[in-house]
């Protein structure tokens, strides 16, 4: 980040519905100009957290600050926020220009300034001619761009986006993401983005907070999240991954030693939650499909053991080969290109090699 000024700060926020905590003691600092994403499955509390920051909900405990000012009990209309919703939420009885002008009127901006600022905002989202139209005459993508212009035109301290692209056609979604990123970087606005779509989060965010059961499981940059997940939940939720049961033998010389599939493996100690693993306990070994490779059966390289090729899934840029072990478990091995289709036909006996420098171990829940 350019600066380390904090734009939004959440401290120990708790919010429950009917006794069940939806947000369970969350603390979070969003830096000025940062694009931060709350990522998690539905019901993880990400939308509740967004609504606490927006002011549509009040926390039972904890404090919320926007630009250093405590806003915990300040209603939404007195907070400096802009919001974009999944349903676009454009006012159907107003034209596009009136929609964009609404916030300026509410903030008592002089009438002479409103026209130029609306035009500028519509220009920014590349819809300069759409002012006189009604929302109904626009496509979903266009409506969401108008909603973005409407939220940004009042120059809020932070913009909150609640699953903004979920209702948009899949082909158009990528364009919308690029567009959002472009605008966000250009005006340098602090952005809080809520989504359940991990690829969307990975491609847009400066940092991602992965949420589960009302808590933040991990808060880090996209690459770190993918390459060094902090929990089995994060490892499973972000990207494709293989999970194999294993037994911890012990920790020695900066390495964790475990046994999986009758093979002894040594992993770098910092990969996974090694501190909580007791010798002899059951654990789960995580390895991404691209960190596995097919090698000759019985070879020394086959550190995950031998199996038989079950099926292939051809994905264009790569082939996912499913190998079934003797105990019935299958792992997914990713091979770039398409050669794997011919080299490893179904029924071939193969060995599986794992790049242990990129594998993780977490306790079995």
């Amino acid at each position, binding site marked *: 980040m350019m600066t380390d000024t904090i734009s939004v700060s959440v401290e120990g926020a708790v919010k429950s519905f009917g006794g069940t905590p939806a947000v369970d003691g969350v603390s979070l600092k969003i830096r000025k100009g940062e694009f931060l994403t709350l990522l998690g499955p539905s019901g993880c509390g990400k939308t509740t957290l967004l609504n606490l920051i927006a002011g549509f909900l009040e926390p039972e405990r904890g404090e919320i600050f926007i630009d250093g000012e405590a806003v915990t009990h300040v209603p939404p209309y007195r907070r400096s926020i802009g919001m974009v919703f999944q349903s676009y*939420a454009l006012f159907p009885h107003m034209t596009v220009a009136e929609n964009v002008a609404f916030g300026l009127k*509410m*903030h008592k901006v002089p009438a002479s300034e409103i026209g130029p600022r609306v035009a500028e905002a519509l220009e920014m989202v590349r819809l300069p001619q759409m002012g006189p139209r009604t929302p109904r005459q626009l496509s979903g993508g266009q409506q969401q761009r108008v909603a973005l212009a409407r939220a940004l035109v009042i120059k809020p301290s932070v913009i909150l986006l609640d699953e903004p692209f979920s209702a948009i056609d899949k082909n158009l979604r990528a364009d919308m993401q690029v567009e959002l990123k472009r605008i966000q970087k250009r005006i340098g606005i602090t952005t809080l983005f809520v989504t359940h779509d991990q690829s969307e989060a990975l491609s847009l965010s400066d940092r991602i907070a992965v949420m589960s059961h009302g808590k933040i499981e991990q808060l880090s940059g996209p690459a770190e999240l993918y390459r060094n997940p902090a929990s089995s939940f994060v490892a499973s939720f972000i990207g494709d991954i293989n999970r194999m049961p294993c037994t911890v033998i012990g920790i020695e010389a900066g390495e964790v030693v475990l046994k999986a599939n009758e093979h002894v493996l040594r992993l770098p100690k910092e990969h996974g939650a090694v501190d909580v693993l007791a010798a002899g306990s059951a654990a789960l070994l995580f390895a991404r499909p691209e960190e596995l490779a097919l090698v000759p059966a019985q070879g020394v390289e086959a550190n995950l053991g031998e199996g038989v090729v079950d099926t292939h899934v051809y994905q264009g840029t790569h082939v996912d080969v499913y190998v079934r072990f003797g105990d019935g478990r299958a792992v997914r091995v990713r091979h770039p290109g398409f050669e794997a289709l011919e080299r490893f036909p179904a029924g071939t006996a193969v060995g599986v090699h794992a790049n242990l420098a990129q594998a993780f171990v977490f306790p079995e829940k």
Partner: protein
Amino acid sequence: MDRLLRVLYGVLIGATLIYVTLPSLVVVVTAFSDKALLMFPPTGFSLKWFERAWTYDDFRKGMVNGLIITAWASCIALAVGTMAAFVIERFEFTGKRTLEAVLLSPLVIPHFTLGIAMLILASEISLSRTFSLVVACHVILVLPFVMRSVYVSLKNIDPALERAAASLGASPFRVFMKIDLPLLAPGLAGGWLFAAILSFNEFTATLFVTGQRTQTLPVAMYTYVREYADPTMAALSSMLIAVTVLFLVAANRWLGLERILSIEARH
């Protein structure tokens, strides 16, 4: 077989239409009779019953009384019902379900029960036979219809619209005025129209709470029928049918009839 079914279907539809509209047709035709008897079909043509209905003093007074009461009752019910529906639909509070049940109860309570209750209550506080008593009674009766109409319209408003407006700096009052009210307008108009028609036509409860000075048209008609049995009633009814049809055609043009009638179909 298929053709037979289609013919039967056509007959069923035709029969239903005739069954529903026949009373109105009979009344309208009888109104043009030249005899002082309610008979069908009439033996001659005359407009004298229309003239009598138009000039009969009690009907004129009843008409004026009815319009005054209807105007007050429908407008008060619209204001109260809109607020009640908005609060019940959008906010959580203790006693919410009870309040809703109480406000909607006139739908299932017999009108004469309400009429007697209002009469007893009014004489206790010496308000009997006043206009305000009749208006109060009608407000209670038509309130559920206004509330249902507003409910339906409110449910069609995306709550994100209100949140969007709030995020743009609009206070709750301005959100209501700038967002909810314009979007509710058709539902409000429908609810008001329905309330007005119901109030104007209400008879059972009205019979208990009106006096000679405050009697509405349906009560005046009832009094008339007890004394005479000539086609004046048919003529008056024909005029009312004509006015109602005009109203509904206009309402359908501007508001969509299915929206107004959905008040009845919901729940």
